């Protein structure tokens, strides 16, 4: 034992030596290879984009809620997009909607969520020094940064950014004559997305290989925290579906710039018949949604993983149905690839194909339902501590239910005829995918902030932030169901031109007001985040008394995460409130042999095996020590 202690000590010294080679500012904060720094880079960039995306939505909500309002005060920001009478330009309105969608889906909820937490947590929770390839990881962030920079530039060009909806369906997105945003703005959109796809792929490959290869001793797949399962499956989905979006975008580039006709046919526009024939706009929709639907799960699964972890920790209870949770996530992963055409029921798709996709779509509701019931049972008879992270996780479950259930309407092709492309859809996906994932992101930040910055965020501000946001999100999106059932179409600059949709001025005004308040409430979070980074209460090593590996590192882990040996794992991550145990949690690093009082019968049998392994290890260690 003495030798062991000594070897750890010498390791410590060695590591300290390392730290004395002070890294330069650039290699530490900018072109960092360290997964923790890259995770933080993704987070900060994600927050930046979330503010932009939110701001855009506030502008178009002003138009929808207060159509008579004169927007002169926005002139310094929007310039020519506000006309003389103070009205927002209708084409710029469409550009706002498009950019809001693109930014939120890709930059905030894909890069900001997966990028942050997969990078930050995978090595810490599986017991690895870093990602499989630090260089690729750095490249992944910087490609994302370039994608963001290009998209940002496109917001300010004269013809405006892409304006064909975030799905950028051709021919609208292919023809400059159709809408000015389809000129340079669309070109920049495509270039930006190409960088983004490359970034996601580099990240995804890294996450997958890290999880498969770099797990510490004892960390079998059946002992992985659900967060890691979620990040792992998310990366697989991304790896399989993003290339298809790239293909779709590439063909669109050809149609736009090189005169091909993949998506274009029989078009007469701006007084001229185009030569393109034989293409099909529906082909684009198939390719787009082959990514587009899995994308929903790319943003949702990490949030669900984070929630599982936070709910278990703060309920002081094992997550209910660990295996069932994994099986449902696997089910969602596989099914997410075979439901895409439910976005296309009324696109002119063969109706028989529509019915197949209706069956497949409603199957995917089953694993989702299982997850909800498991969350509920985890709360049941727990001992709940409402940290801000926990509150946001409960909020997530609520949104997941509300938005998930409306999916059953939309997945049913017969009902979808009426609801497709109305505000019902807007309400549905903003709850189930937008708000739920956003809550997962925020919950994760509150929960892992002490690990990221060594300090605690303020709880009370967290509570205020939660209640304002939770209530706000429902006030924004719940009324949209009524508007949608009444048939209000999406992406309308104004509804007053139609008699079936010229009522509900009051409701739209209400939604807009709620959206502005909810957006403003996010500044509480921003303050809390940046203030606590420097002035927050110092965190201890395991502030939530959690079981997973990241809480065995020093408060602020350096390069390599653990100063000494990487800890070995002896049990699953959810030993909370185990009967007989001294405390209400047992860390993954505590051997079963050390807790005879709380072992379950089948675990008691494993103790012998465990002891043998430990003895062998000891021998190896001693032998190594003797050699050196």
């Amino acid at each position, binding site marked *: 034992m003495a030798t062991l202690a000594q070897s750890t000590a010498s390791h410590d010294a060695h590591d300290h030596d390392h730290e004395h080679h002070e890294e330069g500012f650039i290699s530490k904060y900018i072109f960092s290879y360290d997964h923790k720094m890259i995770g933080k880079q993704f987070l900060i960039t994600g927050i930046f984009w979330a503010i932009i995306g939110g701001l855009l939505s506030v502008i178009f909500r002003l138009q929808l809620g207060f159509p008579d309002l004169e927007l002169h005060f926005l002139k310094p920001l929007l310039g020519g997009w506000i006309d003389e009478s103070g009205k927002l330009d209708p084409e710029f309105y469409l550009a706002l909607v498009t950019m809001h969608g693109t930014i939120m889906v890709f930059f905030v909820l894909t890069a900001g969520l997966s990028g942050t937490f997969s990078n930050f947590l995978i090595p810490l929770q599986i017991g690895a020094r870093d990602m499989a390839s630090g260089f690729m990881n750095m490249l992944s962030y910087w490609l994302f940064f370039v994608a963001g920079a290009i998209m940002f530039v496109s917001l300010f060009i004269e013809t405006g950014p892409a304006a064909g909806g975030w799905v950028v369906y051709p021919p609208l997105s292919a023809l400059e004559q159709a*809408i000015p945003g389809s000129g340079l703005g669309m070109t920049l959109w495509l270039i930006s997305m190409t960088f983004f796809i490359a970034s996601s792929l580099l990240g995804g490959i890294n996450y997958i290989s890290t999880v498969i290869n770099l797990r510490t001793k004892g960390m079998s797949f059946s002992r992985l925290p659900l967060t890691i399962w979620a990040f792992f499956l998310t990366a697989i989905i991304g790896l399989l579906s993003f290339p298809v979006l790239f293909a779709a975008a590439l063909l669109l580039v050809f149609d736009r710039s090189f005169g091909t006709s993949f998506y274009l046919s029989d078009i007469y526009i701006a007084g001229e018949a185009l030569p393109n024939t034989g293409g099909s706009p529906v082909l684009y929709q198939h390719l787009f949604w082959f990514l587009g639907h899995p994308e929903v799960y790319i943003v949702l699964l990490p949030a669900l993983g984070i929630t599982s972890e936070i709910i278990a920790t703060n309920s002081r209870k094992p997550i209910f149905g660990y295996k069932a949770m994994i099986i449902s996530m696997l089910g969602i992963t596989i099914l997410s690839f075979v439901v895409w055409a439910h976005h296309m029921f009324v696109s002119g798709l063969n109706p028989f194909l529509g019915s197949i996709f209706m069956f497949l779509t409603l199957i995917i509701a089953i694993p989702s339902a299982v997850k909800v019931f498991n969350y509920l049972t985890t709360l049941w008879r727990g001992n709940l501590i409402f940290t801000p992270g926990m509150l946001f996780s409960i909020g997530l479950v609520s949104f997941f239910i509300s938005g998930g259930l409306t999916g059953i309407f939309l997945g049913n092709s017969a009902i979808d005829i*009426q609801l497709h492309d109305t505000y019902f859809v807007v309400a549905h996906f903003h709850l189930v995918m937008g708000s739920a994932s956003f809550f997962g992101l925020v919950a994760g930040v509150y929960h892992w902030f002490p690990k990221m910055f060594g300090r605690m965020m303020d709880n009370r501000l967290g509570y205020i932030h939660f209640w304002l946001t939770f209530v706000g999100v429902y006030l924004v999106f719940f009324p949209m169901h009524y508007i949608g059932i009444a048939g209000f179409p999406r992406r309308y600059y104004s509804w007053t031109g139609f008699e079936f949709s010229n009522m509900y001025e009051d409701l739209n005004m209400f939604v807009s007001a709620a959206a502005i308040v909810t957006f403003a409430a996010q500044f509480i979070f921003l303050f809390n985040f940046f203030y606590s980074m420097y002035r927050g209460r110092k965190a201890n090593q395991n502030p939530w008394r959690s079981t997973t590996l990241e809480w065995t590192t020093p408060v602020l882990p350096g390069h390599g995460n653990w100063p000494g040996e990487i800890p070995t794992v002896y049990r699953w991550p959810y030993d909370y409130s185990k009967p007989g145990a001294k405390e209400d949690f047992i860390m993954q690093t505590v051997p079963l042999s050390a807790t005879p009082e709380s072992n379950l019968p089948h675990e008691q049998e494993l103790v012998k095996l465990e002891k043998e392994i430990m003895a062998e290890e000891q021998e190896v260690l001693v032998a190594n020590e003797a050699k050196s």
Partner: protein
Amino acid sequence: MYGFLIAVGVVLLLSLIWMVYRIQTLVSVVKGSDKKIASSSNSVNAFLFIVFLVLFGGLMVWYSVKEFDNYTLPVASEHGIETDKLFWVTMAVTGFIFIITHILLFIFPYKYRYDEKRTASFYPDNNKLEVIWTVVPAIVLTVLVIGGYQTWSDITAPAPEKSHQVELMGYQFGWEVRYPGMDGVLGSHDYRLTSGTNASGIDFTDKNALDDFTSPVVVIPKGEPVEFKIRSRDVLHSVFAPHMRLKMDAVPGMPTRFWFVPTKTTAEMRQELGNDEFVYEIACTEICGRGHNAMRRVIEVVEPAEYRKWMAEQKPYIVNNPSLVENLTPDLKELAEITISEHK
């Protein structure tokens, strides 16, 4: 000046918030509540979940009942009655689950809020429960899907042979409506023939096109099958007739269709709603550019007899634009001239 005052106000407000924040932080440090596992805020948060449940549950029920007639559009097609039925059955099922799960989700936090004296139960799994809540949703969903499948198959089945055809062609930004005329067959079209006088690109070398006519309003008979032949000549559009529960994309290069049976004339609907100005409308639901929100057409549903009378009164394209048939072959030209003289 006002700007300055507002700025001062904002600064004062922010510093006030700042003070309150600092004071409560210091108080919590003095009280030592930041050392506790769960402070008194824990119960407050737990209680707020109950408040939220009651308040929002009440608000939802109140608004759903009060505004029912406003947000439910009257239905005016045979298949629409079926899809509405499906909608409300799904609403009942999901509404039930929605309420039950939310009651549990918000009551559990209150009931099981942190208590030092209690330990959580170690309850990691129960396969029987998992099977139950896999199988039960599966059965419920199967029932819903089968209902949906049957309705969907009926709606998308080929239109009955006798159905009246109307062509709706989307363009930036409007709908061009074309009727087949007395022969009941729409003449063929080619987008390259599109011009100022021939918006739909009708190919007049097809003799079926000679009696085709256009109309500013979509007139259709009540109680008889109508088939919309839908196409687009520039970007994607989507025909949406909310009262007919009808929606179908207009795709350039790929004609689509949707058939239905209107059940109430415009006049009947006006009487039913007590609104003399009521009209059935068509809107566009696929983003198509600047005028996306202005692609309006009115549908007028009339009694079949009235429809036939109206049809007989309409004048073919070529009557008003004889130049369209100038370059036809002699026999077609003769046919065209007969058509024109018939309608003079």
